[in-house]
């Protein structure tokens, strides 16, 4: 088994982490959650189908459940790094929860990170733009109405 173990470096939320004795096939999601304790990144489908594990890699959203940790080259931002350090909310986070659509909230960190990249590129987004741009993020509780609304509001310039 020793030949299946590797060491790797990851830059996460501005800090560099050295991971020893990781399995060579470990996903970024697994390393973030179970080796670095960054459990804000959610595990849900493990096939890149639902977006709950979304993190930003150099500012671009990726599904960390289908990214090999050893392959990751760049700056990873998780929900812990995205959220203001003083415990407050970004305008996007505030808009999403003000729009009333939080229920279980398991999809929410992924929605926030995918949404943050989306609104960068889509000022004053239309409803259809949000539905298309955010359709990689599943929510099982809501009808998406508040999520669409919240992201549109946060995209207003």
């Amino acid at each position, binding site marked *: 088994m020793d030949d299946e173990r590797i060491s790797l470096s990851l830059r996460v939320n501005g800090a560099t982490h050295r991971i020893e004795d990781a399995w060579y096939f470990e996903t970024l999601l697994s390393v973030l959650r179970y080796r670095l304790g960054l459990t804000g990144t959610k595990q849900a489908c493990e096939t890149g189908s639902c977006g709950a594990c979304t993190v930003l890699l150099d500012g671009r959203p990726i599904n960390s459940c289908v990214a090999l940790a050893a392959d990751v080259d760049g700056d990873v931002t998780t929900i812990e790094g995205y959220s203001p350090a003083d415990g407050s909310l970004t305008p996007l986070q505030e808009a999403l929860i003000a729009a*009333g659509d939080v229920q279980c*909230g398991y999809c929410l960190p992924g929605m926030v990170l995918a949404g943050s990249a989306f609104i960068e590129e889509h000022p004053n987004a239309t409803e259809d733009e949000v539905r298309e741009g955010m359709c990689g993020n599943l929510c099982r*509780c*809501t009808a*998406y109405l508040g999520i*669409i609304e919240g992201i549109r509001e946060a995209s207003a310039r």
Partner: protein
Amino acid sequence: MSDDLRTDPSAVGIGTSRRRPDATAKARGEFEFAPDATEPGMLWGATLRSAHPHARLVRVDLNPAKAMPGVHAVLGGWDVPDNRYGAINRDTPVLADEIVNYVGEPIAIVAAEDPEIARRALDAIVVEYDVLDPLVDMMRALEEGHVYRHVDYTHGDPSVVGDVQVEGVYTTPRQDHSYLGLDGGVAKPDGRGGVVITGATQWVHSDRAQVAAALGLPPERVLVINSGIGGSFGGRFVLSWQIHGALLALHTERPVKFLYSREEAFLARYHRHPTRIWVRHHATTDGQIVKIEGKVIHEDGPYSNTNGPGIGNGSTLLQGPYNIPNAHIEGWSVGTNNGMCGSLRGFGVVEPAFASESNMDALARALGMDGAELRRRNAMKEGDTWTFNQLMDSPAPVRELIDVSGQSPLPEPLADDAPGIDLPGGIATPTRPRDVTRATATSSVAKNVCLSEGAPVNSTALVTLRDGAAVIECAAAEVGQGFKTIAEQIVQTTLGISKVTITGSDSGMADGSTTDGQLQTMTSGGAVAMAAATLKERFLKFVSREYGHAVENLDVRDDYVVLTDGTRLMTVSDAGMHLVFQATERFAQRQTYDLEGREPGQPMHVTFNFSATRCTVDVDRELGLVRVVQMDVVQDVGRTVNPAQATGQIAGGLVMGMGLALMEEFPYADGVPTRRTWDDYLVPTMIDAPRIDVTFLEYPEPRIPYGMRGIAELPHVQGPPAVLAALRAATGLPLPSIPATPERVADLHPDAAPTGAPTGPARKRIREDAESARAVPGDPMNDPVSPRKGPWNP
């Protein structure tokens, strides 16, 4: 969106959209869900599952796994002190001992230092199967008498015959809960021979009793703590990993974490039962329904689990929200080897509602009558009697619901240049606007609220007031439905104060009932309201004594003690002199009774809720592609405690029902599930999201504090009939089966639908037995229901 649906963290009291107390933590990723639980020095658990739907276990050799480095324990069925469990019937093995009865059934469990080592240890276990023929067809199961429960009842004169008779056979699929939060958590030894389980469940007290019984421990040696619950929808009523985790924790004397993969969650967990339902309506030529006949078959998996109440709900709610004077209904819950079945939002009612509403669509066509008008004409009202002989003794404004659902503006016509995302099929659709047929139709549904047929429905809440702030303790599970928010609002309004918080939920608290059957708002919410009312009484008595005002002249408003004319005397905080005021109250819903053998006046269900929906769909009939454009839903909620949350429950439930209507199916082929990811098992995405207009009616529920009524299951019941009524209007097809996939909507297999009423087995081999229903110590399901108590329940 309207401003009253914007959540506000500083909003106070019933009727406001107070923000969920956990919203900020959830948005920041700081809220701990069960899969996030961790303990120093913990091991990782994993489960070896059956590869066959039916086989005898000839040999299970755990030794190769035990010998692997990093493996701390490997256990089989013989290591379980009492190897049968279940939330209602206790006939499910914790670990298979002689026979496996479905693909995914647990056979052995492992604890190892790392999840990968645990998985490899599973591979090392040697299992020799003697493969048996699986029973995979529900009709064969019925013919051969594999029946868990059979119900058969009549109402009025079952020999009545209508001038117009319309019948059909309708089928519904196995549906997966597909909550995002995977099953998992940590079990750890408590150091005194017991175990602490941190996970996600709908009912900590039921879990405690089941885990304790399986381990051979007294209930007080097991503590079940609810961590954050990532959705539930009925899927966390029955245990998954918890007993396995507890066994391994006690064997290794280490904390053990389980976390199912999505594929394992599909395989291991129960699903909504598939059904086949024959229904026949008899009506006069002017559309008065005079009789309903039905035969309801639930395919209920290899163990009886929770399926008794399922078929009880299913056969009684087949009637729908209509007053029908005569009836003959039969129902069977049958066993197969196609995986576990159990409760999912709208338990037992989603399927008959689809069947009877579908047949109502057919009846309307046969009568040449508008579907909404047929429903209006037969609408149930307060004072009517259900076919299962229960007086409808609370509001049933069905006609008004139907009328109001037709009052919203219809969606704008489809533009000639509409982009793909607004067309059936979505972004890359081959459909063009001119290929699209649009249609609108109305449907209406009813659902029982709370658990039925004698199941205990009660909850206890403790409210503490100190320095002007109140803390609520209630063990009711917050699965995302919003109980914690509305509990705070109820106390704010009842006590007249703004600072209210609520604690977590564990089995060391008093029983808070199960988060099931849309019962928590009106049950635990009732307990919270009663406790707050008692607390206020005690507090005002104290104020009266200390400050010399007659207690009847005192009240609390906006954080002040006031005279009844509104004059402010002092803040609640000052008045309390740093003392602690407390009250505990238990609220029990009225006693219900088994469907069969009730005395006159004994209810089977606690109460009911009703909704109507007008749904507009766009369909490409040639390609079978569908887009739900708009749903205008009207539901009688009794009292809107939190408009944002109520809207969220109703809209979200409708979309889950729309998923079942159009895409969700978890099929088996020869006893083996063929879909194991969300790439195969499709749930609605943002592309599929329709416009939804939610309107509340507010006819208070009698006998319940503030007139609150449950909300959350009915919208899922409403989804499939709403979508299918509109689809039938667009296509003219009967569409007797859901999901209405493109193949079905394009009518590629017109002869595939089954016809004819089923007959019961000639020879009954009822599988229910006394042993399977035995109670275990501390089981809240078998607690006697105490008399109801409180100002709202004289």
